[in-house]
Structures are given as structure tokens and as C-alpha cells.
């Protein structure tokens, strides 16, 4: 199929891309069951094969056997020995025992605990309830180890991404659209929204409007009516809550920028949704084309828009 290739290991390529220049990698999904945890596990598997000790945490609650909302089976989080993990005390497996290194911050499942797996273990992971606490948890994990910090993220809680220097991987798939085109469009919208450029004083328009807090639909309407051509600045891309056509119209009408840009490095695709299966090759290719980012199907071993990976690295 032109433009797409079967790689020796797209997961390896994705891992290299994500860890280049960032200590923390956050995987966010465009919808529930978009393959986020599968991507997360693929990154961890690469690290394990290479003998790299990682730290893991989650913006939501992940790793439970089935989804607490829809009962769908979900991938478990298997932590090899040595893995650092941040999770609420209530999710700590009793066996085998973890080494408890630190604690701090409250969650509904008890205090956040920073621990190290002494033996391989399988568990659920979860994270703190606020964006600030999440950033603190990532910083603590960075301080406790020297490997990458992998964060199982959540698209509806992207505020946690603000203020960090994470590499962000967007997981998308049949869960967010019934057709390849729909999935690609949704991915493009998410990536465009999260990829707002940072401020550049040399190219700013004469009129600069700073939006404090969230930029919502009402703000967007006002800006479209009264601020066409101006540079509009938000704190970070997570403050933009408008979607779809309104977002596109706004982006066309104003020079939309942010103080703290995010770094989106890649997309992953999952062709399987509830009652829907999309063509694997076409999906990965369409997402790469619509987002302008490398796209990977880490299960089917496909990639598009990315350089061909070399042979698998030795463990």
C-alpha cells in the first residue's frame, strides 16, 4: 500500500520519537477506548526490551480488568521489577509488595504513593485529581528515577499537560468515528487544538488580545465578531475548549497562539471500535495525512508519515 509500510517494530520507532528530548511522555486518546492504554503498554514493552527502567502513572484510572463505565475488557498494566509508579494507596497491589518511596496529595482512593516494583507485578494505576497535582507527581517521578516517565493520559483532562515539557502521543481510532475520514478529521482537530503555536513577538499582529482562563464558545463568537485579524493569546492549548468548525473558523480568522505550547510528537491508531472495524492500513495513513504527524498502529505493526525504523534493538 503506497505511503504505509510494515515495520520491524513501529513501537520502537514511536518510543524513539517520544523520548527524544523529553523525560515524560503522555498518551492521550481522542475518545474512550481509542487504544491509549495499548499504546502506553507498547511503549513500556519497548523500554522493557531495552532494559530501560521507566516510571508510570495515569491521569485517569487505568489498568483495571474491565472499564468501570462500559464493562469492556481493558489491558492490564504489568510493571516489570524496578518500575517506578505513582498511584493512589487504594490501588497498591498487596502482592508482591512494592517499595514505598514517598507519598503526598489526596485522591478519592487514598493518598498518592510513589513506589517501586521489587518484583514484576500487575496492577491498576491512577493519578491525582488535579492538574497541578499531576504535574507534581510527574516531577516527583522524574526526581526518583532517571528513565522516562510514561503517563496514561485522558483527553478530557488535558489540563494536566499544561506547564509541562512532555512529549504527547495522541491515540485515536474507530472509537472516535465511524469512518476512516471521520477518525482522521477528529484526530486532526485534536492535534490542531493541542498544537497551538507559541507566541512570536516578531510576527504578532498590531492588536494582541490575551484571553485569561478558558477560551470557550462565547469567547470564540466575540473574537470572530470583533477581533478578526488580531493575535489572540491563551495560556496554553488546553484552555481552548471550542471544537470542530467553530475552532477552525476561529483559527482562520485570528492568529491564535499560546504562552506555553505543547509538543505533540505522534499519533497511534486503533482500527477496532464498538461494533466498528476500520481498514488498518487506510486508517494509519489517513491519520498521518490529516495531522501531519507520524502515525503508528502498534499492534498491527504499521506506520505512516514516519521514517522507516531500523532493525529491533537488542534488549
Amino acid at each position: 500500500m503506497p505511503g504505509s509500510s510494515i515495520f520491524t517494530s513501529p513501537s520502537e520507532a514511536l518510543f524513539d520519537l517520544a523520548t527524544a528530548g523529553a523525560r515524560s511522555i503522555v498518551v492521550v486518546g481522542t475518545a474512550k477506548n481509542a487504544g491509549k492504554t495499548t499504546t502506553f503498554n507498547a511503549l513500556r514493552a519497548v523500554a522493557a526490551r531495552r532494559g530501560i527502567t521507566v516510571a508510570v502513572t495515569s491521569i485517569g484510572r487505568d489498568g483495571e480488568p474491565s472499564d468501570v463505565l462500559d464493562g469492556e475488557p481493558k489491558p492490564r498494566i504489568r510493571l516489570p521489577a524496578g518500575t517506578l509508579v505513582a498511584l493512589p494507596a487504594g490501588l497498591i497491589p498487596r502482592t508482591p509488595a512494592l517499595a514505598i518511596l514517598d507519598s503526598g496529595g489526596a485522591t478519592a482512593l487514598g493518598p498518592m504513593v510513589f513506589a517501586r516494583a521489587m518484583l514484576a507485578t500487575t496492577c491498576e494505576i491512577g493519578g491525582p485529581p488535579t492538574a497541578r497535582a499531576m504535574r507534581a507527581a510527574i516531577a516527583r517521578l522524574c526526581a526518583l528515577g532517571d528513565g522516562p516517565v510514561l503517563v496514561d493520559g485522558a483527553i478530557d483532562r488535558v489540563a494536566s499537560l499544561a506547564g509541562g515539557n512532555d512529549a504527547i502521543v495522541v491515540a485515536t481510532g474507530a472509537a472516535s468515528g465511524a469512518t476512516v475520514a471521520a477518525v482522521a478529521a477528529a484526530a486532526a482537530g485534536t492535534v490542531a487544538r493541542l498544537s497551538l503555536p507559541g507566541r512570536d513577538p516578531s510576527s504578532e499582529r498590531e492588536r494582541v488580545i490575551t484571553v485569561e482562563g478558558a477560551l470557550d464558545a462565547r469567547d470564540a463568537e466575540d473574537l470572530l465578531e470583533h477581533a478578526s485579524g488580531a493575535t489572540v493569546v491563551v495560556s496554553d492549548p488546553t484552555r481552548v475548549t471550542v471544537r470542530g468548525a467553530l475552532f477552525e473558523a476561529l483559527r482562520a480568522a485570528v492568529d491564535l497562539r499560546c504562552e506555553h505550547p505543547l509538543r505533540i510528537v505522534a499519533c497511534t491508531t486503533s482500527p477496532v471500535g464498538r461494533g466498528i472495524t476500520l481498514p488498518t492500513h487506510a486508517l494509519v495513513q489517513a491519520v498521518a495525512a490529516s495531522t501531519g504527524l507520524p502515525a503508528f498502529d502498534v499492534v498491527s505493526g504499521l506506520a505512516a508519515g514516519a521514517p522507516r525504523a531500523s532493525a529491533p534493538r537488542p534488549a
Partner: protein
Amino acid sequence: MTADLYTSERIGLDWLRAAIAPVGAFGRRHDEALLPYGPGDEDRARTEIAACRDLADRLAAEAVERLRRALRAVPEPTPIVVRARAGDPLGDVDFYELGRFSDALDGLARIWDDAGGPGDGRPPVLERLQALLAAGRDGAGFYLGDAFGTDLRAARAALQEADQDLDRRRLAVAERVRTILGVDPSGDEFVVMRDVFDGALPPELHLVRETPAYRVAGFTLDTADRERAFARVATAEETARRELAGRIAGEYDALTAAMRALGALDHLLARIAFAQRWGACVPTFSGRLAFSDGVFAPLAGLLAQRGHRYTPITLELAGVAVLTGPNMGGKSAALATAGFLCACVSLGVPPAARVAELPLLERVIWVGGDGSARARLLSSYADEIVRGRDALAAASARTLVLIDEFARTTGPREGRALLIAVLEALRARGALALAATHFDGVPEAAGVAHLRIAGLSGTTFAQLDARDLDAALDAINAAMDYRIVEASAGDGASDALALAELLGLDAAVVARARAVYGRGGSSAP
């Protein structure tokens, strides 16, 4: 000592409670169980205040602040201790938290020693608890190490071996899956799209479910050995936790005693910090209310924030007295200071004064002033009368009644008469009472002592810009003699006209008022 809400606000009792609030949960529990000192508690109150004053002298303020910061950070072990005692299983996070608690106590004791604190007040150190947890602690963390159980080491080694064996087999299968199917399985179950591979699955895989477009395959691995090894570790770890929890339950008394000691320390440090901030003293206790250089700390703090000087107050009160003097001369502040210092000793706080002789009271009541919340329903006058009624009903030798310009909102002749009658009644009941008033001749008529604020020193304020309120307050401060002195008959000048001039009232109006005043109040030209 009790005081209603309005009185509490006026005498700074609310402020005082906030100023001496504990920084941690142990201190809050400690204070919740305490009652204020009252009549009969003089020895205990003096002992506490003397100990506090002594430590305020011995410990540096910076060390006290460090101790309070350390106290604030002590984790709360109560739920863990209670669960352990009840025989509930504890988890590794519980052991970790107990380790943190033990570390925090160590840290407090070190700060105490470094600060030169006396041995008998040293925060507790839980050496037996430290010994119980030692095998799991390397630094600040906790791990249920092999030393906690006889079978732990062997069980874990067996599990590790089983894991490695399983991983080897899993990797081998994964490699075959990658080779044969072209799929990279990252978990035990994974999706195989039919457009990627639609052949027969290798025997190491089983079919979990399938659709026309994809199959979900799972690894077929014999995990029985691993499950047995896991169960053995689970048993060994739970046994170790149960035994450790049992030993910790045996430390229940020591742990609860330590928590009580932390509560008492928090309580004490708050008072020490207060004493250091406000230069407090150890009082003597008697039925009199006398103090030198007393400070109404809420006001002094407020003035300091605005860069103004606060003048300490000296007062001697035995029985009932009337306090007269100029407006803005500090009559209300004198009343508040008297109540504040009594509140200090009732809470075991060194009173903010150079020297003090104070009673332990049953009750303080404030009558008059700006009016209580009840005054929004009643008129100011009615509110005063109701409060006066309550004061008379409660009045005894163990009650302090502070009366601030009682009946000033009614006709002056009737108001004066009423004040005289109230003071006579208070005197008859043996109460301590101090009444600030501008009414003339009240002390003589009521047969009570007469004190007065010395007042303005005669400075003129002609050059002052009356629009600058801060400058006006500074000028008044400089010119006002705030000393409370014994008055003689006829004393009672309010310096009202001079102050009105200072505060910018039209000069012609002030001059006219002076002329009227000089003629004894007649308005005839």
C-alpha cells in the same frame, strides 16, 4: 472564662484564639479537650504560664518557628494505630506512614536539642517503633523486606524464577507472533486484523473472540507454576504484615502517648510564640485587675501594619471604676486591654504586659460601644439595656463588666442617671467593672473610683493637613498622653473641640463651639 460573641470580638478573644491556634491535628485535639481556666485554677494556670514564659526566654523565636513548621508536617498515624489495635490488617503504606511519623518525631527532637530546649520538655522519640520498622527502611521509604518473614526470601526467589520463566516463554511466543503474524503483541491479549493476518493462529495462541474484520488472540501459556509461586509470596507477605501489625499494636500506648505529647507541644509552642511576639509576663493572681504596659495585641498588630505606634496601657482596678478622658484617648482600648489580658490568663497564655496582677474570671461581659448583632433588631439603646440587664444578673466578684459609653444614645440626663444606678448595683454585687463615659460627675455620684486618660498635651495642630488621616493619627498619637491616672473631682475634659479641629472640622465652626462652651453651653451670641 466565658464571653458572648460580641464580648469575644470586643476584647480580642476571637483574635487570641486564632493567634494561639495549634498548627497540627494533634494540637487541635489537645485544645478541644481543654476548658479555660477559671476561679480556683490559679496554681495550674500560673504553672503553665510560667513554664511557657521560661521557654520563651530560653528558645530562640526562629527555633520555635522551626519546631512549629516541623509539627505541621507530622503525619497523622491515628487511624493506623487504631486499626492495628483492633487487629485489622495493615498495608505497606501504613508501615511507611508510621515510619514517617517516627522520623518526624526524631526531627522534632533534633530541632529541640539544637535549640537548647530542656530535657524534660523534649518531644518523644519512639525507639521501639523504629526498631520494629528498621528492616524495611532504607532512608525514608518502606519495603516489606525479606527479614520480616521466615519464608519471604525463598518465596520471592521462587516467584522471580517463575516470572522469568514465564517471561522467557512469553517473549518466545511474542517473537513467533511477530514473525508469523506480523503483529507486535504488547500484552497477553491483542488484536489481529484480518487484513494483516488471516491464517491459522499458532498453537501458542488461543482465540478470545473474533469478528469478520479482526480476531482477538491471547497467549496460551501454562501459568500454574507462577500462580503457585505467587500464592506462596502472598501468604508469606500477609503473614509478615500481620505479625508486624501485631507488634505495632503492642506499641499502642507509646504511640498514643507520643501523639498526646505532640498535642501538648503544639499547644505550648503556640503560647511561646505569642509570648515572644508580645513580650508577655507571668502574672500574679488576685481579685484585682492591675497591669503595667499592657498591650491590646489585636490593635497593636493592626497599628503596626499601618506603621503606627501603639502605646501600652497601665491600669489598676479594684472593684468598680469610671474611666473618663478625651475622645481618641484610648478609653475603649483600655477596656479591651483589661478584658484581653484576662482572656490570656484564662487560656494559659502569658498576658501581654510587663507586669500583671489578674483574676481568673467566670465571665466577661461588654456593654455598650458600637452594638452587637442584636442591635440590628433592637435599637442601640435597647441593645445596651438588654446587655446591661444580663451583666447585672451575672455580676459577681468573678465577673468583669466592661462598659463603653453606656446610654450615650439617649438623653444625657437620663443616661447619666442610669449609668450611676448600674454602677451602684455592680458595686453592691462586688463585681469588677470599668465604665468609660463622657458623662460628668458619675464617679462621685456612684461612689466608685475615678480614673482618667491624661489627654492631649496642649499641642496645636494648625499646620496639619486634616485630609491626611494617617498624619492626623500620628499627630494625635504624639500629642496624646495615654496614661491612665487617678482623677480628681471635676476632671473629665474630652478634648473634643481640639480633636474636631485636628480632624478638619471647619475652623469657624470650632471657634463658635469654643465660644458657646466658654459660656456654659448657652447659644446666645
